């Protein structure tokens, strides 16, 4: 206790008031009513927030109660010992058999082949050209209108060099260029921030694919070397496909799910 713990010191020297416990009990008892009064009075965003908080509290409360009740519940005995003695030749049949592993890898292969285009987001809203491109007026009198500015996020490779302004029809603004994607591994349920290697397919149009436009449903190639995934042949895989799951131009980031 440092020198200036005034409250504790005071309680130690002079004790607490005689009805301290009673007051605390009453305060707690009244808390329920106070809370209810507030819950009934509040409205708007505060009400939403309050209800959410209260719901969480209640959920944890219910879980705790359930946990305490568990020792009273009856459970089915799952691993009942088989009756009788097991013959010796059946003893090592337990656990995973080799045949099963093999079938798993076959399944995986088939899945990879067949499910190449079976993607998490099979259907997307098509993006029209006039939504995708903004007309940029050029010329001394600003009367030429042949240049287009991409309004969505794009991926531009490292080696890209702009063409001469005379030949540059499509402009991809540097502020909207993306280099990284937050990729979720669907089985591991974890997310990694990975480098984008390229845009494989934009479902809306081939032009968008060529321009590297990132919209919802776009298939990307991402660098997974950090993850340490191994191909069936034993090599370290470093390029993998992923599909964009959000609208990057609205969120300011690219979220994707890894296609496995």
């Amino acid at each position, binding site marked *: *206790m*440092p*020198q*200036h*713990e005034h409250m504790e010191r005071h309680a*130690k020297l002079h004790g607490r008031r005689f009805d301290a416990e009673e007051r605390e009990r009453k305060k707690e008892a009244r808390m329920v009513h106070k809370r209810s009064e507030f819950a009934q009075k509040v409205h708007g965003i505060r009400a939403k927030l309050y209800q959410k908080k209260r719901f969480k509290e209640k959920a944890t409360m219910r879980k705790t109660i359930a946990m305490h009740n568990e020792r009273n519940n009856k459970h089915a005995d799952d691993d009942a010992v088989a009756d009788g003695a097991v013959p010796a030749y059946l003893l090592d049949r337990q656990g995973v058999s080799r045949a099963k592993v093999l079938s798993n890898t076959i399944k995986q292969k088939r899945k990879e082949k067949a499910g190449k285009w079976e993607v998490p987001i099979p259907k997307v809203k098509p993006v029209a050209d006039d939504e995708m491109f*903004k007309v940029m007026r050029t010329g001394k009198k600003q009367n030429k209108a042949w240049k287009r500015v991409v*309004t969505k996020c794009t991926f531009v490779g490292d080696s890209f060099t702009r063409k001469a302004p005379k030949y540059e029809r499509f402009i991809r*603004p540097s*502020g*909207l260029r993306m280099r990284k994607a937050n990729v979720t591994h669907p089985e591991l349920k974890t997310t990694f921030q990975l480098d984008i290697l390229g845009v494989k397919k934009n479902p809306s149009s081939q032009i968008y694919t060529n321009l590297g436009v990132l919209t919802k449903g776009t298939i990307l190639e991402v660098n997974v070397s950090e993850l340490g995934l191994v191909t069936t042949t034993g090599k370290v895989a470093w390029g993998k496909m992923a599909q964009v799951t959000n609208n990057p*131009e*609205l*969120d*300011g*980031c690219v979220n994707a799910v890894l296609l496995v």
Partner: protein
Amino acid sequence: MPVYNFKGMKPVPTAPELVDIVLMRTQRRTPTVVHPGYKITRIRSFYMRKIKFTQQTISERLSGMLTDFPRLNDIHPFYADLCNTLYDRDHYKLALGQINTARSLVDSIARDMIRMVKYGDSLYRCKCLKRAALGRMCTVLKRQKASLAYLEEVRKHLSRLPALDPNTRTLLMCGLPNVGKSSFMNKITRGNVDVQPYAFTTKSLFVGHCDYKYLRWQVIDTPGILDHPLEERNTIEMQAIIALAHLTCSVLYFVDISEQCGYTIDQQCSLFRSIKPLFANKQLIVVVNKVDQQPWESLEEAKRAMVQGLADDANCSLMTMSNLSEHGVSDVKAAACDKLLATRVDARVSGKKIEGVMNRLQVFNPAPRDGVTRGAFIPDSDGVTDGDVDMDGGNIRKTARELMWEGGGPGVWAPDYRDQYDLADDSWKFDKIPEIIDGKNIADFVDADILDRLEALEREEEQLVAESDAARMGEEPESDLESEEEAAVEAIRARKKIIKEKKLATNTQNKPMLPLSIRGKSKDKHDAGTLLATEIRKTMDSIGVDSSKMLERGRLLERGRKRERSLSRSRRGADDEDAAMDVDVSGLSKAALKKIKKEKGEKARRDLSQARSHSRPREPSQMGLKDSESVKSAQKLDRLGRKGWMGASGEGDTRKSVHLVKWMNTGKKRNGTHYQR
């Protein structure tokens, strides 16, 4: 030199609180209205401002924390080490480092998102980006939950640490638990440290202050130290070790020779030896405590030699003391203070700074002119020694508090203030003074300076007597007036007095001035009664003069000139009458005479002038009134209306106070309740 006071740190909010603070501030301090119809640049700047503002708020708050918390590398090593033991240096630095990282993360998020908003082409897109930006910043803050909670705990503890100055004059007590460190602290300071008969009552450093030689001394009470290796020491012991290691101070090592603390003298000596390296460059005193239980002289020879050996080894002094009997307490304090003071002065003198002072000093020793010794004059007024010095001597004057406890404690004993009376004779002090003598209350006759007054009165009387004697010797003063004249003078004086009083009574400044036209001119303002017709008749009759003509004349004057021509025509015939009247009127007052004279002159002038050929228009106030009756009634009403005019509110001043305002109290109530909107 920095002052170590950690009380000024602002409270650190928890992560959800911080998020609330930041978002609330953004909502309140930035504009909230935007429409899709606005120009896109305006929409963009609206949302960019929000993002920027949030980022600024967050970094402001986080920077505040970073500057508030002391940096362990910059503060005094004593505090740095104390923080290390109490809060764990690594944990502390990590927490602050994480806060710093969070700040830069938020900055970079804001930068990126603002860049994106610059390309926003619709309100919806800008809004989505803003939402994402704020959300990401808040997520960063939420991740700092643990660090923020830890920092808040640290802040609370830091702010409750005693304000200990590492560089000042310090006395430091150390020793095993229960050897009497805290009791000594309570004896010499007002620190009011908890003293209990069990080990580790004192769990942290405590600071008290005492005075010695007109200087302020910081006294530090440390927790007890056990005799084991440094690695095994716990947090409580480590605080004592840190204080010993880092503070330049005078150390009092307490040894309990009665062994009531539960440790033998042997153990206490071995602790001394093990922590001896910490005493280097410090002024050390081995304090032999609790001599009331076990006198130092009657201690076993072996033990005494052991303790004495300690002091000899460390080349320091050994003092005996008892907190209970207060034997040697002030001696120990004085010795410790003196030692430290001497070294501090030595350090000063041998230092560089002294040069600058010494150059400016010049000491003169005047040569003695004769062989007479002139010592300091110390008056022995009440023959009482200074109570502070004589701790175990006998003849100390009793304090009022001691007298109180002897006399039955507070509430029973009351101080007798009679012995403080300042009287001419001391034997009068306790004399009894009766309240009532001969049925009279003495208090009614008591006067503090009655003697002075009596003396003054006697002097005055003497003077008067002397004057009257002198007057009797000379002639009596005599007036040269007749008795009638004197009466007249008396009358004049009385009248003058009345005039003066009237003037004083009526001529107050705090009244509204009435114009003469309204007020009218009174005939004799000092005596209204004399001009009433009845009064005149009475006085004239008593004199024996016929008053009827006089009164008629008076009425005439009052009414003004008659309109008939015939009268003025017959004026010459009435000359005699006029002359007779002049005589009659001579009894009137001076002002009236003056008025009459003036009137006469005017009359003569009017007579010479030409007669009017047109009728005069009526007075404006009488215009539109039918006849004299209605004029009269109008005048009466007017008079009545003026009656309460003086300063009070008139009929024009009527005012109607409003109790219910219609527009406030009728109609539908859209916003708020009936009582409040």
